[in-house]
């Protein structure tokens, strides 16, 4: 098999079923270069699904697999699987232009050895198409043991909304899937692989993932944050991501807040030497000094810091970096600035310097360092409407304040704080005063009262919110012993002389993709770039910076650092306003037991199928998994195109009288094929409802064919025969079985077919003339079929069966038609029309386009093979008329 695609082929064969394979092999043998395009992950078509095939009862796999291998090994046949033909257009030179999309399999086929280890660790189960949904397979899977090519593929629909939403690049779907399987250690591992500080995030993250959770749209979302917290706080941190090799390059990180820690964490994992410089006496930055301890216990922060220190990161505390030159002199080749955004904004009104007026961060800092101001019994006001204001209010309550009022200039719905935070504050007894703005803080020695003005909401500003208009004529005084100002922060521009570019509000300007500043070798991220924002964003920015710093220093792309869509870029536009997720941790309490966590995780819908848990990535011995694989467009020139796209099976769920899809023991014939095949999902023929071996089986012919009411008045041609075959195989597999076939006409028309029918009758298969019009279920799962007993006593008769097989018909599969710009005609049943089926078999209405096998009408395997042979002759003749001589 040639792996390299060429830009021109003599013939492109679409469809790797028996007809497509046969034609491709024949043309290849004649010397023509063929490309076989298959939309599934393996060739083999419908035939490979079958058990044995009539009338010789030989094994379908034994016939199909050598053909499949021949296709793969043929020197002039190139195989392209998991690929969809997008368009076929005629060219001026008489040839055809074919456009194909190769869908990403997320597994590098040149590395995959088909060993199947990935399947064992995969966390997501899906119905197995190969087994017609009778059993499950994994999100990563090898289609079936005889697959050609025998390579794994991942069923993946982008990134799950939760994972796409995480600014830190965590994969909630991934760790949920692991928790669901009870693999809690692996869940923690998966979290730690994507971001540090799981304990911190488990406590303080605002969980944008939960807001996006698909489950939440249909009720309560998965408690993603609580699950993370559960594994972060309950499992030992034994596993570390120690670097495989050391890289002798030094990086300085300025600031030990979440962003700096995250950057250091990832760089150290890559083997770089990292030193964090922190001006405070303990590391953690905002986490330690800004977030109240009641929200984030310090043991949790310290445990998270251990993860980083264990990687060899050095944290120098009590040292403020004032110039970058010294760092360069110390041999640091790159610097990450993560200095935060801590400078409080002021109101600029009289009395701001009165004792009793506190800035939010210094208030929180004093609380967090165990030296809170004396507030007991006092009346406290908090100015501001953000999350920090609420933190201050609730902290004030914890300092013993008698009454705490949050004063905000707009209405509740305009508050920048998350609504669930407001609710929690309300629940704790915080009071709110809306549409008021302070004009003056008054008091003799210390604050006694605040002069408030009423605020009117004016026109909407550029952010879409009503502009507050202070009305100084309507004032009131508000008695207060203390006031905490929580009206915002901005970064301190600390390196004014180093040539950095700043935004007017003091934020550093960086490249949003790489987080590089305009100074060579210096990167920046977190609040100093974005202004005050969520911890997760800061962590994400650190991760992004680490990625680019590594690339900057080594010239390599670090494949193991995954910058998922939302991972914190520097641009402010990326901000999202969060709505409260429905299930904000309410599903289970503070300290769940593992069973509760597993159950909660079990509600996940696997909306992107693959959970991105990356267990396969870590397990694959060949390193073949590539989750970044992209679709690939292929354009090529073809002398001829063969349509061998086969047929579709009728879906009986559209016929309610059959009971299919409602009664588990009504199955399709294809499901029966799987139950009978040697590669069957169970080691016996069992009915799906209760796993019982069915003793009395009914086969209902013409389910979805010869039925105008079902939209298909045509005969599907194969069903009579495959049903007779299944009847015989069933009698072989279940010696005590009784099999009844209900028919309108028994169409055993081919060579040896009538004899096959007689053989079945001789074996004791009951043949009943009469179409089953209705199937009912009994309480024990047995089924009752109703038919008119026209050849017996007349009238309606009921018969009871333990399993009913619907011999579903073959429908046209005209999908490809839309790819052809020329007029490609279909016949009345929707199959591709042969214009002159007697004189010129396989020739369609479009020059250069041929059809073979069941794509031109239902056919059994021998007829497909013959038809495919005819197509090869026609194509060879056509190519010769174009001037292609083949070999």
């Amino acid at each position: 098999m040639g792996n390299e695609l060429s830009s021109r082929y003599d013939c492109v064969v679409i469809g790797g079923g028996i007809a497509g394979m046969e034609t491709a092999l024949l043309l290849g043998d004649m010397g023509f270069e063929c490309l076989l395009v298959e939309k599934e992950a393996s060739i083999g078509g419908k035939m490979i699904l079958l058990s044995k095939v009539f009338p010789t009862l030989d094994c379908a796999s034994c016939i199909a697999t050598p053909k499949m291998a021949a296709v793969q090994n043929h020197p002039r046949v190139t195989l392209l699987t998991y690929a969809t033909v997008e368009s076929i257009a005629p060219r001026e030179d008489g040839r055809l232009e074919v456009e194909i999309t190769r869908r990403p399999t997320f597994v590098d086929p040149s590395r995959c050895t088909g060993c199947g280890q990935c399947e064992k660790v995969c966390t997501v189960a899906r119905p197995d198409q190969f087994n017609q949904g009778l059993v499950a397979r994994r999100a990563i899977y090898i289609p079936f043991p005889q697959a050609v090519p025998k390579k794994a593929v991942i069923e993946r629909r982008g990134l799950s909304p939760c994972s796409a939403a995480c600014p830190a690049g965590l994969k909630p779907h991934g760790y949920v899937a692991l928790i669901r399987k009870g693999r809690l250690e692996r869940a923690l591992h998966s979290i730690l692989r994507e971001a540090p500080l799981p304990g911190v995030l488990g406590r303080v993250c605002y969980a944008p993932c939960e807001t996006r959770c698909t489950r939440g749209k249909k009720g309560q979302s998965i408690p993603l944050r609580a699950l993370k917290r559960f594994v972060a706080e309950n499992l030992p941190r034994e596993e570390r991501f120690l670097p495989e090799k050391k890289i002798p390059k030094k990086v300085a990180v300025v600031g030990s807040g979440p962003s700096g820690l995250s950057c250091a964490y990832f760089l150290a994992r890559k083997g770089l030497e990292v030193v964090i410089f922190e001006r405070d006496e303990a590391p953690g930055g905002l986490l330690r000094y800004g977030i109240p301890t009641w929200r984030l216990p310090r043991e949790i922060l310290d445990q998270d810091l251990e993860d980083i220190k264990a990687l060899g990161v050095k944290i120098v505390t009590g040292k403020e970096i004032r110039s970058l030159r010294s760092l360069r002199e110390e041999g640091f080749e790159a610097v990450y600035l993560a200095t935060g955004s801590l400078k409080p904004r002021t109101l600029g009104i009289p009395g701001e310097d009165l004792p009793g007026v506190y800035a939010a961060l210094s208030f929180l800092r004093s609380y967090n360092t165990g030296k809170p101001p004396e507030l007991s019994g006092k009346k406290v006001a908090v100015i501001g409407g953000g999350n920090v204001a609420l933190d201050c209010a609730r902290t004030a309550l914890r300092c013993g304040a008698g009454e705490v009022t949050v004063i905000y200039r707009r209405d509740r719905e305009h508050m920048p704080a998350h609504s669930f935070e407001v609710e929690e504050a309300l629940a704790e007894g915080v009071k709110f005063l809306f549409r008021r703005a302070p004009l003056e803080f008054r008091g003799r020695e210390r604050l006694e009262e605040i002069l408030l003005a009423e605020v009117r909401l004016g026109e909407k500003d550029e952010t879409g919110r009503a502009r507050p208009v202070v009305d100084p004529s309507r004032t009131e005084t508000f008695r207060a012993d203390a006031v905490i100002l929580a009206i915002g922060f901005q970064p301190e521009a600390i390196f004014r002389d180093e040539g950095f570019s700043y935004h007017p509000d003091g934020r550093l300007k960086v490249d949003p993709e790489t987080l590089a500043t305009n100074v060579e070798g210096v990167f920046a991220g977190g609040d100093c770039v974005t202004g005050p924002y969520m911890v997760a964003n800061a962590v994400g920015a650190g991760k992004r910076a680490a990625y680019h710093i590594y690339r900057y220093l080594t010239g390599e792309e670090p494949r193991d650092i995954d910058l998922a869509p939302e991972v914190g870029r520097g641009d402010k536009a990326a901000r999202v306003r969060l709505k409260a997720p429905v299930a904000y941790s309410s599903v289970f309490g503070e300290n769940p037991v593992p069973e509760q966590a597993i159950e909660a995780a079990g509600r996940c819908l696997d909306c992107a199928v693959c959970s991105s848990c990356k267990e396969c990535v870590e397990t694959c011995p060949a390193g073949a998994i590539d989750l970044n694989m992209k679709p690939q467009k292929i354009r090529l020139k073809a002398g001829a195109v063969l349509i061998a796209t086969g047929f579709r099976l009728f879906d009986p769920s559209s016929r309610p009288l059959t009971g299919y899809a409602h009664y588990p023991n009504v199955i399709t014939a294809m499901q029966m094929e799987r139950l009978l095949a040697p590669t069957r999902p169970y080691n016996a023929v069992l009915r799906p409802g209760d796993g019982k071996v069915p003793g009395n089986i009914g086969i209902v012919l013409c389910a979805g064919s010869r039925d105008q009411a079902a939209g298909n008045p045509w005969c599907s041609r194969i069903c009579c025969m495959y049903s007779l075959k299944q009847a015989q195989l069933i009698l072989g597999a279940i010696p005590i079985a009784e099999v009844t076939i209900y028919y309108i006409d028994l169409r055993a028309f081919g060579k040896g077919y009538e004899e096959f029918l007689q053989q079945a009758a001789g074996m004791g298969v009951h043949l009943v003339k009469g179409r089953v019009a209705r199937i009912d279920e009994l309480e024990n799962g047995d089924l009752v079929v109703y038919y008119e007993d026209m050849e017996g006593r007349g009238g309606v008769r009921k018969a009871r069966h333990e399993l009913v097989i619907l011999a579903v018909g073959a429908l046209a599969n005209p999908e490809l038609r839309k790819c052809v710009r020329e007029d490609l005609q279909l016949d009345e049943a929707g199959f591709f029309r042969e214009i002159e089926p007697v004189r010129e078999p396989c020739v369609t209405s479009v020059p250069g386009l041929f059809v073979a096998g069941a794509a031109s009408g239902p056919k059994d395997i021998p007829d497909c093979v013959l038809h495919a042979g005819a197509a090869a002759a026609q194509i060879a003749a056509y190519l010769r008329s174009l001037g292609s001589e083949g070999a």
Partner: protein
Amino acid sequence: MKEPRLGVFICHCGGNISDVVDVEKVRQAVEGAPGVKVAQTHMFTCSEAAQQEMIRLIREHDLNGLVIASCSPRLHQETFRQMARRAGLNPYRYVQVNIREQCSWAHPHHPGEATRKAVALVKGGIARALRARSLEPIVIKTRPEAMVIGAGIAGLEAALGLSRMGIKVHLVEKEDRPGGLLRDRGPIFPTDQKGRELVEHLWREIHRDANIRTYFRSHLCGKEGVVGDFRLKICRDGEEKEIRAGAIVVATGARPHTPQPGEWGYGSEGVCTLYEFLLHLAEHPEEKPLFYRGRRVRRLVYVYCVGSREPAGEKARTYCSRYCCTAALYTACLVHSRWPEVTQVHLYRDIRSYGKYEKYYRRALGYGSVFVRYSPQSPPEIHPGGRLRVRVRDLLTAKQEIELEADLVCLVTGLEPVHSPELLEHLKLPVGKEGFFQEVHPKLRPVETMADGVFICGCAQGPRTAEESAASGLAAAAKVGALLLAGEVKREPLVAEVIEERCDGCGECVAACPYGALELSGDRVRVRESLCKGEGACVPVCPQEALQVRGYEHETIKALIDSLAEGLADA
């Protein structure tokens, strides 16, 4: 033979093998074994890097044999053969040893024994590699020329198809005109084109085609040579003519069954077969009202399955002829469109208008044909006379007996094989139970026969409709094309060979070969390599161990057994 210099490579398969089998131990066990020059392990032998490395080693050490112990040969034998070729080593000197599917994965709980087995298997591989010979594919020169026997629809299509592919065609027909069963026919399904016109159309095209020569009133009377270059004789009016061709397509068709006089009223006035009726209609397309041999036809009764689907018994025609239901329905539609006043009644068993042909059933129903289902246990009774009376039990109204009068009873008979003793004699074509020519395998090789280079198509192989005959004619043409177009056929050289010194010419093997690939020449047996398929059916019958298949020589297999037995015994 040069001193053996083997390279042995053992694959970890990233743990798939090495988690169970101690690969290093295997390597050590074979390192330094006689003939082994290089023994290495690789994480993934199939990876491009490992292949480059092996190619380098093959060249550097001038290796003349290669053993790779990895996965199933079905996955990578071809990969490594090609790698060997790239490295300048004859691919048949490469031996694949399967220590994944048949060792590490099969014995995950017995690492020790699995390792021992792996050693045994690798040693077996070495034993085979030591005895492997450089082989080249068997090349059979082919001439781009073919004979098509029979000028019915299948033969005509095959001839045209072959010619359009650039193959010269000799079209041989025993009658004096082309067309077979379609020759004198009116409209046929599914195209509604007249059979006669279709044949004329194809014939004009063939006549214009300088690449096709036709021989009428001729039949095959001799065949010599092998596939790719047969020397064939055809006979015309007692004259013989030799034609050379690389392949033969047999498209001799079938003929409509005719009942014995008296059977089903046949022979009486007003009773005919469908084929006779169709010929009549083609001759008198415009006549109004409808007459058949002087009888005014107002009521027309078709009786289906006459001489078909008979209960098993000697000479019983048990088979279904596939085309007749649709043909009768199509005829009913035809009659209705020309003579709508005619009432048509069909006595049938199962209407087998399969697939898209269902439309003719629907049409016939819509045109007012009445259908009565009868059981073979009580077939319709046809009472001849001025007005024919037909009595039948109608299964569809709970077996009530009904009687009707008819002006014409049309017996819908099937097709039966044409007996062609000359073909059987010269081509040695196998014949199936019903007397039609037998393909090798209905799905894998539907137009091939056990006789190499001889292909079958059309109704000669079994009853079928015109479009199916045409498609099978072209399918045969495609197979011939695949055989002849390249100018040569390359075959795996792993075929039988005779160890001359052992052969005593007893000839037992000649009879055992199903392909006629063995012949006695003097007191020795000779293998006609172009005919041999290498399956080895001859091997066990030779009392002298004089026959063997390359790659599976007696000595090789025994050496292999030795290595395996020893390997397993080394506990």
